[in-house]
Structure formats: structure tokens, C-alpha cells
């Protein structure tokens, strides 16, 4: 493989020093004179009509500058989902509506001189509700006579709102029923995931103000500044040219910020009062009223022949999108499109199901984007099949997984809420992932050990394999601009959105590798809709792969411009290279500094700005692959599951920055272990969340996290920048099935409902 100078290096994060020295880099580090503080009044009911709302007392309160309810804002159906245009999510939301659809839904908003005045004003708003019957279980949504959650006439893009169905799929390749009848072994089960929240350290926050031109500027913790601008323009009826969205540093997003959740309100307040306005969600609002993972019930049936070759896979899903359908169809499609191609040896595949509305919090994009729910079911079913056949589940996986040069009809059949794009898998290191993981983990040796290690204490060993995608093919576009200064330094301008993920650093590395300069010679400016070129934003595992390729293309063009000048200056006819910021003529050893080139271009001859812009759209979405292995200890007296060792072997193509890559892998495994062991919102019988806080919603602490060994299996993806694919999401898919499989291995109990609490373990053991 080609040796790179900057790519493949653990380059220090370009924003690292500013972050650790506490520079004012976040949205909230920014305060403007005369800024108003906003607060949202939220529904106490799961489903109700607002019979009357009277805000006059609130408006009279001293210090209150604006109060918004459905009565004084535009009524336009839209989606909060920050996706490409036209969005595949239904238009079923309003800034405010006469109807509330979950506990925590928007009722009104107040902007005032201080937060405490805004809070007091909320209590002065009089609302009379007429409570409606609510749907708190997704199974009930489909029943005859179920309440209709979206009966508004304006709704668009939902499959059948009168039956609470947001999206429906009935897809079959081959003949699944026949193949199952012909199979020697058949397994089936239903696996269920919970309401989990992203828990970014920084809650959603936005500040709006008018600049000296009268332009509306919004500084927001968003993953999608350009989509936010487009959606706001549509919603508020102001031209895109009058809106500028800036994304500063962000304290994590994980999908929760691939939404426009508060920007509309600060915009309204600023447009009305001409004053800066700020709105920040509280942690409780973040849990209840921002976005969550889609709770799903995933039914899987597998059929295999005597040799252990899969003949049929059936996946049927009931996905709960909550009160609004943001990302509902696409997350559901992904649960199939990112999982089923992994076992492409099965010729008969069926993918069916419904996404339904309920009167519960709104699910949205969450790292993994449906694949996590799909893999929990699929990879547990594979283990069950192996048990039924009496073979090692690792071997069953080896027999059936996709290989380089192969394809799956699913790639074409399932896309972004519609048909996808056919593709052949070019780079695939899954075989090595399984091999290297098994060796480091000592799979066979461990599985031959006695499971009871002390009285009542059992160890178990489980695994799972997985894939994801890299960007949304033929939908999403990214672009980049690179400019050279006269001292030979560079500016990289990207619309791409660094959420703390390190993408500014990765993109700098790609630019520098292509041009031939060290990272210290480039400054990255990102995510400002007025000053950086378009990028779809941070989602779908696409920044390194898609934005990275746009950066590489721009860098290539800039390099060509530099070399043109260099040829003239050196009077050279032979090949020129740029290394470490120096232009060299191959063979002669003649050199030239970039400063000499810059000064000439700016001031002397053939004067021009050396710069280039490039855009990129991908025709494929090359999957990264991974194999995960986990050792758990289960205390059968208390039911507690403790992960002991986790091994993740991952093929993400070329790792542009290995340290950041490991960070993504470890972070997503920890996140997935949280789903497996402790995370989950709990509701009472009226749809009210009981644990929307860090006291009772348990994210794993550092003491709960096992030793995690990461193995990078490098492959070279021809369509990616310097061979790179994605790594941001894939590894969140492993912990649920790997832990469940390990617990089965320890005790012979099947955990099919996440999280796997100590209570559920004792219940399955028949002890309580």
C-alpha cells in the first residue's frame, strides 16, 4: 500500500488546543448586548387539543418581549429532519399547532430579558386542553379504531396517516416462504430495542441576531447548517439570501442535532424584536423533547441448509417514530439496507414492516441509524441458528458473509426511504476482521473454558459482525474550497460539520496530503453558510468519505495551479513534486518555496489568487466492516452483567487519523454498551417520562467500561480519499448482539429486550 506522509498519522486535532484551554468556541460562549432568553412551554398531555390558549398575562409581564403560540406564527407543514432536498421524511410538523401529540410537545414560547422572567411568563400562559385518547404502544397504533395522531389536512409524505403509518415496505427477493420450507434449519425470534437518547454533553442551543445588513444570523449547535438554512427559509418565508447559519464548536450530536428543533424560535424572536435571542434546551428537554433512537421490534426468520448456507432471511419491523416522523422512513429502510447485504449468500430475502406514530417522544437520527436495531435481531438469530446446527457461530458467519467483488440485490432495492443504488463491494476486510479478532480474543480457547468461574459467577463469550455505509450515494453532495496565501500557507473552507468528531482535522490531513504540505500550514474554516461552500452536513457516516473526496479534488486542482507557476519559475521541464511545503524538481534537486510562488502570483506576474473549489457526489456507499468479540461476567445472584473484555476488529479502509479512528470506535462501543446494559427512557401510563435526567437514566461511567482492544484492518477503498471509508457509526451496532450472545453462552438465556437489566436476567433465570 502506498505510503502517505500526513494521512495515516495521529495528527493533533486542529481545534484541540482551543478546546482544552477553554477558548470561547461553543455557541453559548457568545453573548450579545440586549440578548433575549427563550423558554418553551411544553405539553403535559400525551395527546390533546388546545381548546383555548391565552398569553395576555404573560405578554404583560415586565421584561417579556415576545410570546409565540399557534395563533401568531405561520402555519406550514414541514419536517424538522435535516436531510437533502426533497426530504424523505413526512411533512407533519408545525412551529406550533392546536394539537399536542406527546408529553413535552411545543405549546408556546416566551422570549424575555432573563431566563427567570421567561420561566415566570410560561406559568402565566393559560391553556385549556381537551385530552384525547393516546397511543402509548406501537402495536396499538395499527389497531382498528386507534386514535389518529396526524389528522391535519396539510400532512404530506406519510404512507397512511389515517392508520398512523408513516412508512410501509413489502419487499421480497426470491421466494422466502418456499426457501424456509426447504431449509433444514429454521430459527425465528423478535428482538426489541428501547427509547434511548443521544445524551450529547452540550444540549441543543441557538442564538439569533441581525447583522449590520439586516441579515438573520443564527449561531447553532447543528449538524446540518445548510439544511437548517433551507428549512428556515421555507418555514419562515424569508429568502435563503437573508439567512446565515454558523456552526461553531459543538459538544456532540450523534444524530440529535440533524434536526431543526429550536432555530425557528430564535429566528422568530429576533425577527419580531430585532434583538438577539437565545434558546437552550434543558437536560430534561433534551431527553424528552429533542430526539431519540427509534424503538423497534424486529422479527427475524432465518433458514439454512445442512452445510450451514443461509437460504432465506426474513426481517419484519415495527418501528416507533413517536409523535412526528422525522427520519422515520429512512431509519427503517436502513435497518434492512445496512444489515441484509452482509449475508448476501441468502438468495431469498424479505423485508417488511411499518413505521408508526405514537404519542411518545419523537425518534430521529441516532448513530447507527436503524442498523443497530437490525443487527441486534439478525446477529442474535445467527447465533441461535449456529446453536441449532451445533456449529461454532463464528464459522457460520464465515460461511455466509459478503466478500470483495460481491454484491447484494438489497443495495438497489432499499435506499433512502425509496430505491437505492446498486453497487459492488470493492474493499472488504471482514474476513481478516474475524480472523484477527478471533486470534486476539482467543475465541476457541475461551469458549472451551468452564463457564462457572466462582460460585454463582459465570463467564460467557459472544460475537457479532456488521457493516454500515459511507455517505448516501447519488443524493448527498459535499464541496470544499482551498486558497493559498502569499506566504505559502493555505485556507481550507468546508461546509462539513465537525461535531467534536475531528473532521476538521481529517479534512486538513487530506488537503495537506494531496498538496504536499504539513498540517500546520493550513487553517480550516468550517460550517458557515455564507463563507464556506455547501456540504450536506454531518450524518450518514459521510464526512471523511464524501467531504474528504471533495477536499482532495480541490487540493488536486490547487496543486496543479501551483505546479504550473513552479514550472515557469524553475524553468523546469521535468516532473515536479511538492514535499513538506517545498516544490522539488525530480532528478535535478532544484527547489522552490511555496512563498516564492505565492508572492509571484499575488504581486508580480500572471497575477491571480491560487485557489480552487470542488464538489463531490458518490455513486456508491462503500460499507466499512467489523467483527466484535466480548467476554462478559454474569452474577447469577444479582443478575448483573459485567463486560470484561471487548475486541473490535474494524475495516474502515485507510484510517486517515488512527487515533481519531480509535476514538470513534471506542466511543461507539461504549454508546452501544449503554444500550445493552443500562440506558432507556421509562414512561408512566400517561406517556410521561419518569427518568429524563442523568440521575435515573444511566449512561455507563468509566468504571463500567471494559478493556477495549481495537484492531484496525486496513483496506484500500478505491472510491474514497486515499482509500478511506467511514467509521463513525458502524461499531455502535455490535454491543447489543455481542453481549446478548455472550450472556447466552454463559447461562443459556436469551436476552431479547434491551436494556439487559439485572432484573431481566434474574427473571429469565427463573429466580424472581
Amino acid at each position: 500500500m502506498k505510503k502517505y506522509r500526513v494521512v495515516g498519522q495521529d495528527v493533533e486535532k486542529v481545534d484541540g488546543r482551543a478546546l482544552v484551554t477553554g477558548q470561547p468556541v461553543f455557541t453559548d460562549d457568545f453573548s450579545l448586548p440586549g440578548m433575549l432568553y427563550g423558554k418553551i412551554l411544553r405539553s403535559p398531555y400525551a395527546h390533546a387539543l388546545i381548546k383555548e390558549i391565552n398569553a395576555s398575562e404573560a405578554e404583560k409581564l415586565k421584561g417579556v418581549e415576545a410570546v409565540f403560540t399557534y395563533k401568531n406564527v405561520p402555519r406550514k407543514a414541514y419536517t424538522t429532519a435535516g436531510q437533502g432536498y426533497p426530504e424523505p421524511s413526512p411533512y407533519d410538523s408545525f412551529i406550533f399547532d392546536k394539537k399536542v401529540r406527546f408529553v413535552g410537545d411545543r405549546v408556546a414560547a416566551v422570549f424575555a430579558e432573563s431566563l427567570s422572567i421567561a420561566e415566570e411568563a410560561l406559568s402565566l400562559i393559560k391553556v385549556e386542553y381537551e385530552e384525547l385518547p393516546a397511543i402509548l404502544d406501537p402495536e396499538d397504533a395499527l389497531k382498528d379504531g386507534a386514535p389518529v395522531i396526524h389528522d391535519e389536512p396539510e400532512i404530506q409524505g406519510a404512507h397512511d396517516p389515517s392508520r398512523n403509518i408513516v412508512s410501509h415496505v413489502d419487499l421480497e427477493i426470491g421466494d422466502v416462504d418456499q426457501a424456509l420450507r426447504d431449509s433444514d434449519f429454521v430459527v425465528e425470534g423478535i428482538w426489541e430495542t428501547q427509547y434511548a437518547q443521544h445524551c450529547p454533553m452540550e444540549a441543543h442551543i441557538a442564538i439569533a441576531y441581525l447583522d449590520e445588513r439586516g441579515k438573520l444570523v443564527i449561531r447553532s449547535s447543528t449538524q446540518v447548517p445548510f439544511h437548517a438554512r433551507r428549512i428556515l427559509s421555507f418555514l419562515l418565508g424569508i429568502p435563503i439570501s437573508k439567512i446565515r447559519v454558523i456552526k461553531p464548536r459543538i459538544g456532540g450530536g450523534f444524530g440529535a442535532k440533524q434536526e431543526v428543533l429550536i432555530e425557528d424560535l430564535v429566528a422568530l424572536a429576533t425577527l419580531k424584536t430585532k434583538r438577539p435571542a437565545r434558546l437552550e434546551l434543558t437536560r430534561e428537554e433534551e431527553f424528552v423533547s429533542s430526539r431519540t433512537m427509534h424503538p423497534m421490534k424486529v422479527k427475524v426468520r432465518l433458514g439454512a441448509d445442512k452445510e450451514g448456507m443461509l437460504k432465506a432471511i426474513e426481517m419484519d419491523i415495527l418501528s416507533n417514530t413517536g409523535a412526528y416522523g422525522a427520519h422515520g422512513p429512512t431509519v427503517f429502510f436502513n435497518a434492512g439496507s445496512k444489515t441484509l447485504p452482509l449475508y448476501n449468500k441468502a438468495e431469498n430475502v424479505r423485508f417488511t414492516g411499518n413505521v408508526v406514530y405514537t404519542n411518545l417522544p419523537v425518534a430521529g437520527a441516532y448513530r447507527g441509524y436503524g442498523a443497530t436495531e437490525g443487527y441486534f435481531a439478525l446477529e442474535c438469530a445467527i447465533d441461535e441458528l449456529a446453536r441449532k446446527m451445533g456449529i461454532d457461530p463464528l464459522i457460520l458467519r464465515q460461511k455466509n458473509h459478503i466478500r470483495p467483488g460481491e454484491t447484494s440485490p438489497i443495495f438497489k432495492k432499499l435506499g433512502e426511504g425509496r430505491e437505492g443504488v446498486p453497487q459492488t463491494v470493492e474493499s472488504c476486510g471482514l474476513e481478516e476482521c474475524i480472523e484477527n479478532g478471533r486470534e486476539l480474543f482467543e475465541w476457541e480457547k475461551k469458549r472451551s473454558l468452564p463457564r462457572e468461574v466462582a460460585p454463582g459467577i459465570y463467564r460467557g463469550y459472544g460475537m457479532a459482525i456488521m457493516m454500515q455505509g459511507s455517505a448516501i450515494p447519488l443524493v448527498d453532495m459535499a464541496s470544499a474550497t482551498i486558497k493559498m496565501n502569499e506566504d505559502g500557507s493555505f485556507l481550507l473552507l468546508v461546509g462539513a460539520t465537525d461535531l467534536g468528531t475531528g473532521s476538521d482535522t481529517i479534512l486538513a490531513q487530506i488537503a495537506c496530503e494531496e498538496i504536499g504540505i504539513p498540517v500546520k500550514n493550513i487553517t480550516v474554516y468550517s460550517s458557515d453558510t455564507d463563507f464556506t461552500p455547501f456540504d450536506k452536513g454531518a450524518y450518514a457516516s459521510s464526512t471523511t468519505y464524501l467531504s474528504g473526496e471533495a477536499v482532495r479534488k480541490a487540493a488536486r486542482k490547487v496543486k496543479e495551479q501551483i505546479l504550473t507557476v513552479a514550472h515557469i519559475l524553475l524553468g523546469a521541464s521535468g516532473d515536479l513534486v511538492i514535499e513538506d511545503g517545498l516544490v522539488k524538481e525530480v532528478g535535478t534537486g532544484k527547489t522552490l518555496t511555496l512563498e516564492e510562488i505565492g508572492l509571484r502570483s499575488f504581486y508580480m506576474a500572471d497575477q491571480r489568487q491560487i485557489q480552487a473549489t470542488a464538489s463531490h457526489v458518490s455513486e456508491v456507499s462503500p460499507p466499512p466492516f467489523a467483527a466484535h468479540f466480548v467476554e462478559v461476567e454474569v452474577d447469577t445472584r444479582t443478575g448483573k452483567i459485567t463486560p470484561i473484555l471487548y475486541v473490535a476488529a474494524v475495516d474502515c479502509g485507510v484510517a486517515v487519523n488512527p487515533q481519531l479512528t480509535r476514538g470513534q470506535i471506542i466511543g461507539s462501543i461504549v454508546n452501544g454498551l449503554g444500550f445493552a446494559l443500562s440506558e432507556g427512557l421509562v414512561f408512566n401510563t400517561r406517556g410521561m417520562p419518569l427518568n429524563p435526567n442523568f440521575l435515573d437514566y444511566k449512561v455507563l461511567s468509566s468504571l463500567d467500561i471494559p478493556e477495549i482492544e481495537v484492531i484496525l484492518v486496513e483496506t484500500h477503498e478505491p472510491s474514497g480519499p486515499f482509500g478511506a471509508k467511514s467509521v463513525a457509526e458502524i461499531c455502535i451496532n455490535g454491543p447489543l448482539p455481542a453481549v446478548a450472545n455472550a450472556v447466552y453462552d454463559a447461562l443459556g438465556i436469551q436476552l431479547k429486550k434491551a436494556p439487559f437489566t439485572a432484573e431481566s436476567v434474574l427473571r429469565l433465570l427463573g429466580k424472581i
Partner: protein
Amino acid sequence: MRDFKYFRPRTLKEALSILTQERAKVLAGGTDLLVKMKDGLLRPESVMDISFLEELKFIREEEGMVTIGALATHSMLERSPIINTKAPHLAEASRSIGSPQIRNVATIGGNIVNASPAGDSLPPLYTLEAELLLESEKGSRIVAIEEFFTGPGQSIIEPHELLTAIRFKAPRGELLTFFQKLGQRKALAISKVSVAFLATCAADKKFLRKVRIALGAVAPTVIRAREVESFLENGSINEEMVDLAAKLCSEEARPISDIRSTLVYRKKVTGELLKRGLSQFIEGVIS
């Protein structure tokens, strides 16, 4: 949080006088109080910050009596040589509370007056049959810890009274103790169930003499498991005894279902925690 008057007395005397005049809410480490104030569950008119009263930050042993100032933090307790030798299970419980940051400011007095049945220092204090010193301008009284609590978050302390010290007789002879706690994760977790155990045993280490067991988070207040205590007293620890004690212990627990766990689970695991704790002694000290 709404505005409130803030007092910071320099002496205990001053504190007691402010309490009488102002009916101020006491703030020690603030790790319970501020959470409640931020959530709007408490909206005191005035708050008295006693965290500067050095005279209440001590742990000492005199003539077989261990006395702990109400402002001793959990960090002080977990490190104190006195506590580690005279009441190792109290040190263990202190070590299990919250995180280092919480333990550095949270006090034993706050843990007691907060009166949560899941307060982790309480079960060990029950087994030590600790006494609480309540002082006010009018005088002082001493209350047995078991008499202090009346329900979740409730106790007999009067608004003008301050808890100033906790004391207990240092148990004598060979000691066997443990504190077992089960939370939803390893740190920063409120106990679903906790069990504190204290026993003295004969010099020959053959028999348990006095046995004290207290259970946390399984009743409206911390409770003593008296049936189990008398079952174990004057017996030896073997597997059969431990199994029976665990069963008895589950029966004595009177838990509820809530957001953190279920009734049946808590009942079952109360016994299991006792068993886990006692099992370490089977082949250990006594066999």
C-alpha cells in the same frame, strides 16, 4: 431557582441563633439540597451555609466512643484510620457514594438529615447503633439513629435544630463487617439495595456473638433485619446457615417498585447481598 437570603455563620453559636430567627434551610455540601432547589422541589426563603464551620469537621475517638462531626465529608470518612479500623463498613459505604467530586463536598450530616432510605452511610450507622446529637439555641438532645427517621425524606429533626455530631461505641473484639450495595452502574448510582453487616465474634473465631444487620432502600427507612440477626447470633458461619439467613433476610425486606428496580428483584437481591457478604467469611476468619 428563585432568589433566597443567604447566611454564612462563622460559629456554631451564630448558626443556632440564625436557625431560630430565620428558619433557614441548612446547606452543608449542598449535593442534595441544591438538586432539590434547582428542580423546584424546595423553594426556601433563606439558606444557611454551614460549610465553613470548622468545628463540625472532625472524626475522633475518646474512651471507646467514636464521634463524627456532622460536616465530616465522605472523603474524610473513607480515609479516616479510626473509621477504617473501628467501622470498616462505614468507610466502605462512604467510598461507594457518588464520585470523588461528590465525596469531597457531601457530608455525613447531610446524608442523614436528607433521610433517604437509600442513603449509603445509614445502614452501617444502624449496625453501630449510632446516636445523633441535635442542637438548638434552647438546648440539645441525643437520639438513637433508629428513632430519628419517620419515613422517606422525613425525620424528627425540628427546623431550629442542627445535627452537630454522630457518635457510637467502638465495637470491641474481633470484628466482621461488610457493606454491599447494588446500583444501576458502578459509580454515581443510587442504591437499589444495600446491606450493612457488623458482628463481633469470639476470640477463637468460631462463633458469632453480637450480629447487627441493616438494609437500605428496601423500606420507607433503613431497617434492621432483626430476625436474621438473632438467627445468626451465637452460631457459626457455614453454607447452610448463609443460605437460610439469605432467605430470612429477603423476607424481612419490604421494598417497593420504582424507576430503579422492582419489588421482587429487591427482595430477592437483599438476601443475595447478605449471602455474598457472608460467603467471604466461610473459608476466611471463621470456619
